[in-house]
């Protein structure tokens, strides 16, 4: 009951008028900033901190401001994904798959509304789960050691392999290429540089932003030039939502994805990106009866968004109980707590429940405000697409360069981005999907490191990987997924053959 009481107190503070106003400003500014690819919450927070100080906000209000900027910029990242096919951060990659086709069909406003609604659902469920389950779950998370993480990453790669449509060999090759690109840079376990060709710029690895913006945004521009060959490109009608809000909720999808996302979020380090990918893969497996996923299926937007936000909530569990940040969100929140002179750690929860639950309430309030703010604004955002292409596309290219430039401020990264743009263009022409490449880059390092940690702990005994019941269970699930996929493929071929014979 203590928890409920503290949470109620947190909400009482968070819903004071001044705090609501602050949350509103934060969400709006965050949304605008997040919509610029490569520019994220850190920049937004940097801008608003002076404001927080000059207005002399109380610590709680400052927290609310910063969480709302964070949430706002997450949502803003979806705007770029859906409208322009540029993932602003790693958890927005999967939103591109169905979000961008929706925008091309003139349903940009719908897609944005779905994103806002299912994010809200995910956030809500996570808050509930957090309140009820936090202490139980934290203990479970501790038992996740290197081999369990490795099993989880293997499962993720296999499951996510099913995301892309088309030639499975090409999907697999794309994923492996991503893993290979992920090995560039200093090996974290031994400090040895790998595949760097002696270029210092590559020592820290290839930043995700560079790859994602290059592969998606720059290749989009090259594709666009070529498409003009088939005559003038039709301007898509955009602006208003085409569907009633009620029909954009997808409750079953959001619920499934939220549960999955929350569980993944509880594991420190797995995080929102994995949750968004797996939420999408699960939904595709469950719902994709007609092969509409990847071609603008609204559920393909709802699932990752719900999972992503539920994971952000789930990642509060290790933060609250262990003081270890489980995701980007919690890392930023921990940073805020540190500046408020709160020492993160396992005692955080007992020593300063007011601040901690105030933070949870602040997150939730930001979630609500974002929904209220953005539903009316989605039409406005979608209007961006009415800018004539010969202005819009070069503008997008400029923003892409700026997003990459802001990472390290050097020309090398810009050239690398252009290189990845040409690479992405070729992959798209050859029907090799881009998403597995990006996923491989994101998951490669943690996957390799968890494998090597397991090996180091066991002294090189490979059987250690299956000696824990939890890891064994995860591997069994993976095996089932592969088996089902093979059977299904075989069935499809038999049917196709039968149809051919029949005809």
């Amino acid at each position: 009951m203590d928890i409920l009481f503290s949470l109620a107190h947190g909400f009482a503070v968070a819903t004071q008028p001044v705090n609501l106003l602050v949350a509103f400003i934060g969400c709006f500014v965050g949304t605008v900033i997040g919509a610029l690819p490569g520019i994220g919450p850190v920049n937004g927070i940097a801008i608003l901190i002076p404001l927080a100080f000059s207005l002399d906000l109380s610590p709680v209000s400052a927290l609310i401001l910063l969480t709302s900027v964070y949430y706002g910029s997450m949502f803003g990242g979806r705007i770029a994904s859906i409208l322009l096919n540029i993932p602003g951060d790693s958890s927005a990659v999967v939103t591109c798959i169905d979000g961008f086709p929706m925008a091309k069909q003139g349903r940009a406003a719908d897609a944005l509304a779905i994103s806002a609604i299912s994010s809200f659902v995910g956030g809500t469920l996570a808050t509930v789960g957090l309140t009820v389950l936090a202490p139980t779950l934290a203990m479970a998370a501790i038992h996740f050691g290197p081999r369990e993480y490795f099993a989880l990453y293997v499962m993720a790669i296999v499951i996510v392999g099913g995301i892309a449509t088309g030639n499975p060999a090409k999907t697999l090759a794309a994923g492996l290429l991503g893993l290979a690109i992920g090995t560039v840079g200093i090996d974290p376990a031994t400090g040895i540089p790998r595949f760097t060709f002696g270029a210092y710029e590559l020592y820290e690895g290839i930043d995700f932003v560079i790859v994602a913006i290059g592969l998606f945004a720059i290749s989009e521009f090259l594709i666009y030039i070529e498409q003009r060959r088939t005559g003038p490109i039709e301007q898509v009608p955009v602006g208003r939502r085409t569907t009633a809000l009620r029909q954009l909720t997808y409750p079953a999808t959001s619920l499934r994805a939220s549960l999955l996302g929350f569980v993944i979020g509880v594991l420190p380090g797995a995080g929102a990106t994995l949750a968004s990918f797996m939420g999408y893969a699960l939904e595709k497996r469950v719902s994709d009866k007609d092969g509409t996923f990847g071609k603008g299926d609204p559920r393909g937007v709802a699932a990752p968004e719900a999972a992503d936000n539920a994971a952000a909530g789930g990642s509060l569990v290790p933060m609250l109980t262990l003081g270890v940040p489980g995701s980007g969100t919690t890392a930023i929140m921990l940073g805020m707590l540190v500046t408020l002179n709160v020492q993160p750690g396992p005692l955080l929860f007992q020593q300063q429940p007011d601040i901690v639950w105030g933070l949870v309430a602040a997150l939730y309030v930001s979630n609500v405000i974002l929904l209220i703010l953005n539903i009316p604004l989605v039409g406005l955002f979608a209007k961006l697409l009415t800018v004539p292409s010969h202005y819009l596309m070069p503008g997008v290219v400029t923003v892409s360069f700026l997003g990459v430039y802001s990472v390290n401020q050097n020309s090398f990264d810009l050239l690398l981005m252009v290189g990845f743009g040409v690479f992405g263009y070729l992959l798209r022409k050859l029907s090799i999907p881009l998403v597995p490449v990006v996923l491989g880059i994101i998951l490669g390092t943690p996957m390799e490191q968890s494998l090597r940690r397991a090996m180091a702990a066991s002294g090189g005994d490979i059987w250690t990987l299956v000696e824990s019941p939890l890891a064994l269970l995860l591997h069994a699930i993976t095996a089932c997924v592969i088996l089902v996929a093979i059977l299904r493929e075989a069935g499809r071929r038999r049917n196709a053959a039968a149809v051919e014979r029949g005809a």
Partner: protein
Amino acid sequence: MEIIAGRRALAAGMLGLAGLAGARPAAAFVGPRPECLAPSAPGGGWDFTCRTVGRLMQELKVVSQPVQVSNMPGAVGAVAFANVTSRRAADNNLFVATSTVGLTQIAQRRYPGDVDRVRWLAMLGADTGVILVRADSRFKTLGDFLDALKADPGGIVTGGSSSLGGYDHLRLLLLAQKAGIPSADLKRFRWIHYDGGGPAVTQMLGGHVEVVSTDLAEIAGFVEAGQIRVLGAMAEARLAGSFANIPTAREQGYDVVGLNWRGFYTGGRVSDEHYNAMIAGLKQVYDSEGWKEAARRSGLQPIWRSGPDFERFVANMVTELRSLSQDIGIIS
């Protein structure tokens, strides 16, 4: 790393803001355009050092112009080191943030040049290396642990927040050397690297690693909560405040000091006059209440070493780390 970066970025931002207060000329610091070079991206540890010290220099009016913080990330400081030694060796505006992490890289010859290519200014504070176990561990003292390690070098799973051959690992090996474990056995230790002290300790609580070697600041909360035991702190003397009951390694008979210090170097051809003025400026920062406060917040013990004393300290440390790295085959 990313996680820590986020937190530091924010802290830096907050501190940077406080630095907006006015500045009036009263130059004790040489150079018309003072610049602190952080060899990391904005938000990294070295960036934090630069921004904090830069802000304090301005507040204390050590400088007449605001200190410009520029970032030059790459190869754990090697890019910045190469730039300073080749192009800005005589630049009296410039001071560069570094720490034990950078020095370890120099010791393992991963920078283009050795310690004598630059002039070492001063260190202003340090985090303390600690050896940790779970509260219910079989090891009660550093001696218990090191004896067990001596008996079975490959039998104990150890870990920390650095790579193999990184400073957390080397500190543990230095202790093992003092315990009389031969070099050939040092190679057999099992070492798991984690992305930070927090994750390492969490995994220790879950039983995935038995002993952790890392810095105190990040995991201080776990110590206070009583979930973990500190077998020994690698400090010169006992720590202050709530950590006073932690025994040092030295008092248990293992004379190893493993401080992760934060400090600065400047170009190798900066004149003595400018070099001394820079040190005087840093000393003013060190003596201020603001530095004590900033150090406390980020878990550093204020420690001052400067000039020839600091250069000797750096040279000794490099010699020690280099010979250890050679012994265990990290470098040839």
